């Protein structure tokens, strides 16, 4: 049989205690980064970036809309990959991460849809149009809701974790199919703002703050994710000695 060896830190992350201590050190840095990126990006984007020659100032919502749309998709990816890791290597920590991803992803998808609707009103004259990208994001929200509902329906955590991991993997396989099917069905939306392969069509003073906002959103996501995972981890490990120790130390201080 072939033996696959994984790096040491990968195994260490699987230990709840190690994860807890590791993220305690990580959290403040990500918090600071979030604050800096979001402040710089928001002020630059909303105040100093030039207005669009066609859409005027209404385009500025792009600085919220694009980062949340990107993040909503990558959050699903992370949830499914974490679920797969949990299923394959039977890591409790991976399931905790996947569980923490679902509500965050759903709320970010709602944010993307809401900012899209607000942007759509002055640009297209309607809050909602049946366009491919909007519909795909709505379906993504439904997939998130399905995962959350399935997780909540199980009474034992182990079953809930595995079942929602399978569902999110099934969703992950389906996302490209859904995306292309709705794209052939209807397209009105402007094409992607950022692609890895091409230079953005916007001038740099417009897309640099956008890039900063995307980074800020990712850092913000990391902070929320770690926070949720830590709370869930304490809840699940409440009978273990190190959690008792931790609480006792905090209690007596």
């Amino acid at each position, binding site marked *: 049989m072939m033996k696959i060896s994984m790096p040491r830190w990968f195994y260490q992350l699987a230990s709840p205690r190690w994860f807890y201590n590791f993220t305690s050190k990580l959290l403040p840095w990500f918090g600071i980064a979030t604050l800096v990126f979001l402040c710089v990006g928001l002020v630059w984007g909303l105040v100093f970036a030039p207005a669009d020659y066609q859409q005027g100032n209404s385009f500025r919502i792009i600085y919220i809309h694009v980062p949340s749309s990107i993040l909503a998709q990558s959050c699903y990816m992370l949830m499914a990959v974490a679920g797969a890791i949990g299923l394959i290597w039977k890591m409790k920590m991976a399931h905790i991460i996947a569980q923490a991803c679902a509500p965050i992803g759903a709320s970010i998808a709602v944010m993307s849809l809401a900012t899209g609707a607000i942007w759509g009103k002055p640009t297209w004259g309607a809050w909602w149009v049946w366009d491919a990208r909007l519909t795909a994001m709505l379906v993504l929200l439904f997939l998130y809701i399905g995962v959350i*509902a399935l997780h909540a329906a*199980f009474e*034992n955590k182990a*079953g809930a974790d595995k*079942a929602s991991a399978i*569902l999110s993997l099934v969703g992950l*396989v389906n996302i490209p199919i859904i995306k292309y*099917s709705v794209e052939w069905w209807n397209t009105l939306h402007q094409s992607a703002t950022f692609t890895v392969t091409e230079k953005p069509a916007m001038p740099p003073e417009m897309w640099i703050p956008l890039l900063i906002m995307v980074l800020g959103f990712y850092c913000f996501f990391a902070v929320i994710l770690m926070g949720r995972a830590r709370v869930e981890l304490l809840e699940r490990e409440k009978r273990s000695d190190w959690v008792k120790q931790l609480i006792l130390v905090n209690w007596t201080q």
Partner: protein
Amino acid sequence: MSFFLAALKRELLLVFRHRSDIINPLAFFLMVAVLFPLGVSPDPSFLSEVASGVIWVAALLACLLSVDGIFRSDYQDGSLEQMLISAEPLWMLVTAKVITHWLVSGFFLALISPLVAMMFFLPEPAYPALIISLLLGTPTLSLMGAIGSALTVGLRKGGVLISLLVLPLYIPVLIFGAGTVQAGAMGLPIQGYLALLAAILVFSLMLAPIAIVAALKISIRS
């Protein structure tokens, strides 16, 4: 192979002993379709325009309604557990169950769909497109639905949950299925749509049994 045939025979026998299992989805399909002219408009030109979508949505709902029970009775009387611990491969059994479900819901539904198409004044050239697209699309619905059914079989309130899980996954089949009928109605070539439906079917036939088996194991153990 003999195990697969035996499993298929058992499932078919079970279905034909409960004839209401065959009739109920078909009656549901007809009733949902009838609601649209009553609720929206009986105007023939309007109906022929929405026919493709309405028939496909009704088929999708009928399939969803019946897929909930695909593992339920075997789970409740404990025979699913016995099948799980038997030495025979579970995917064969699962595939037999899905095929039976498709025969009962999708296949018969495709056969009676011209009746609804006639009531909706669908142009005649679209009839073959409708039947073929339903024959190619509904097996995918059964496969995807079985994943949802396997995930929720151990839960007490599976009914609404399964539609939440499965309906988003049905969207591509709905788009291409209704697209086939629309193209057929306008006299356009439908081979492209049919190829896509067939591709989705082959793809889900490959992967869905794995997911169903994994989901069943989780449902039984928890």
